[in-house]
């Protein structure tokens, strides 16, 4: 089965998932992001890489931060950006997803940045559009959020330099998390020797072991000696459907506190894709503490998304 995100020459045509992405492509995107980081500090914050190209932000699901960072990234590359809040337009009138795509492709879109509540929706779009269009997955259901995964890798590389000696723990609601899946694939692709998943069994998907992950239900056990702690956001609706009894009990056993953080390596970093639920998955003292990268990540957001847009659309 051909990997739908690579073209016949093995080059990146779409960014749909980190799974199956060759390590050199991941590294190339991170290197490109580094080179774009200084653009944000310039007086004229623009490079002409995507001049004349149209980037359509297609958000079938709500998002502020991801959409905004893509918009800024595309603008800095001199692309024309069209933001479509598809929830409130065509699809609510009964137009099918592919009809919407056809209509937009006819407006000479060059790139689609897609977020959708259903796992796999960007794959369907990518297989439908012509060869001149690039599709970027900005989050699909529980499946993947590759640009967030790349951003997380960029951050880890910034702090830890080398992936080959790290132990990384992903903590919380992995079952529903597209970020967790993308992080796990990225970490294993980059050669991280030990990736751990920590959470109650109701929030862990089947088959984590086959993804190369060690599973822990005891957070204290799982945090021992780790270099990186990746916290996940816990949605309030998980309290329904018998997945969890309460936010309080979750925090007690799976929330990151200073006391639990002390079990990790002294120089461990704490990451969170945000938005955070303080007191549910992370305590404020940790979130705002010196080991936390939660806010520092923001500056890299745009650079990584510029890199993805640039690598795909810049030829």
């Amino acid at each position, binding site marked *: *089965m051909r990997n739908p995100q690579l073209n016949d020459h093995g080059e990146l045509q779409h960014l749909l998932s980190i799974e199956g992405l060759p390590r050199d492509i991941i590294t190339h995107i991170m290197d490109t992001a580094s080179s774009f980081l200084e653009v944000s500090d310039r007086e004229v914050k623009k490079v002409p890489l995507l001049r004349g190209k149209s980037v359509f932000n297609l958000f079938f699901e709500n998002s502020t931060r991801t959409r905004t960072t893509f918009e800024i990234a595309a603008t800095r590359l001199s692309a024309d950006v069209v933001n479509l809040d598809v929830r409130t337009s065509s699809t609510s009138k009964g137009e099918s997803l592919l009809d919407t795509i056809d209509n937009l492709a006819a407006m000479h879109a060059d790139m689609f940045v897609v977020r959708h509540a*259903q*796992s796999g*929706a960007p794959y369907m779009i990518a297989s439908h559009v012509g060869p001149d269009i690039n599709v970027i997955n900005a989050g699909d*259901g*529980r499946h993947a959020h590759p640009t967030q995964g790349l951003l997380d890798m960029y951050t880890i590389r910034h702090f830890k330099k080398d992936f080959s000696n790290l132990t990384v723990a992903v903590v919380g609601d992995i079952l529903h998390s*597209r970020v967790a899946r993308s992080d796990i694939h990225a970490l294993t692709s980059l050669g991280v020797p030990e990736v751990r998943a920590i959470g109650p069994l109701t929030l862990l*998907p*089947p088959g984590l072991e*086959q993804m190369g992950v060690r599973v822990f239900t005891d957070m204290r056990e799982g945090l021992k000696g780790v270099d990186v702690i990746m916290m996940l956001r816990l949605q309030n609706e998980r309290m329904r459907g018998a997945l969890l009894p309460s936010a309080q009990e979750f925090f007690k056993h799976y929330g990151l506190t200073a006391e639990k953080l002390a079990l990790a390596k002294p120089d461990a970093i704490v990451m969170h894709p945000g938005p955070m639920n303080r007191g549910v998955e992370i305590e404020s003292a940790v979130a705002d503490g010196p080991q936390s990268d939660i806010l520092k990540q923001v500056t890299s957001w745009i650079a990584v998304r510029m890199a993805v847009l640039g690598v795909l659309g810049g030829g």
Partner: protein
Amino acid sequence: MTIMISNGRLVDVAAGLDRVGHLHVDGGRVVAIDALPSGFVAERVIDASGLVVCPGLIDLSARLREPGFEYKATLESEMQAALAGGVTSLVCPPDTDPVLDEPGLVEMLKHRARSLDQAHLYPLGALTVGLKGEVLTEMAELAEAGCVGFSQANEALVDTQVMARAMQYARSFGFTVWLRPQDSFLARGGVAHSGPVSGRLGLSGVPVSAETVALHTIFELIRSNGCRIHLCRLSSAAGVELVRLAKREGLPVTADVAVHHLHLTDVDIGYFDTSCRVEPPFRSQRDREALGAALADGTIDAVCSDHTPVDDDAKLLPFGEAEPGVTGLELLLPLALSWAQRAGVPMATAIARMTTDAARIAGCEGGSLAVGSIADVCLFDPQAHWVVSPATLRSQGHHTPFAQRELQGRVRATLVGGRVAFG
């Protein structure tokens, strides 16, 4: 019309046949094998040299989409597909719109089928009104109208008291209840087998326990209520094992499997291929092998197409939103043959699972070439290779995970009631 089918390889386990011979048909019946009956003059001779001549296939689950979903398929299109696939009898689930829960609807459907004069149609009546799982239908009336059994199709029967009473009531009249074993709570929201693939793709899973829990419930209710149950579309190794034990215990159960489950697993979903969105979901390789072994040894009695035409609008959607179902009438025979070949099962056994055994479950005519049987006959070339091209299928349903696959075995002619209906 008198027909002589000459020099074909006659294959029929029921009649103890697997040899080259001649089949003579008169008045819609098989009147003789080999020796010409006295006074018989064939008005038509079909040379079946190199072909297999077997009973017309009896498909235990084919949705024709009428009434209510004519935009997905019609009786005309699907009957043609059936005949092109060598299928002469169709058992149809009641999940039409309106649901087949009233005798009038069943009579209308039977009348439509009769006027088309193609394959035989055997509807299953709804077990509960509107398939809602609350109120029993008038089963006796529905049976008089032509229903051969009663089913919930793919709808849940959550209330176990209703299930128990439906079994008791059906048993009073000697009816068979057809149930798809799936616990609706455990299966809730699931679109793929609960396992490494669904975990990786971020798709909600249907665990194997959804099937085993339902089977335990059904078997326990049979033990106390005694009704004859046909289990539709087994999907797991664990489920197969429970059925094996139940049969050994002597419970009055039969079972079927959809032919695509003998070939595919959850890995075939690949990158969210919605043509692999089926109910029950494709499971692991171990499950697939267990289903095949059970079909070979008779634990699973029959194989069906579970033919379900789905229109593009309902299929060209993200995986979790796509309607389950694949087209199958024209693929049942070649897929069953290729399964048999791969599994080292005699062709005659594979054919029996779609003919003799299926007739026993549906309680319908056909499924045999024995003298006196209705002349529903399928002639196919077991050597013919062809590539599945969805656009050229006769069915209005074009979605199949077997598109572009090369299959072996092609129907050359189909007789229904002694009339050449295809070929």
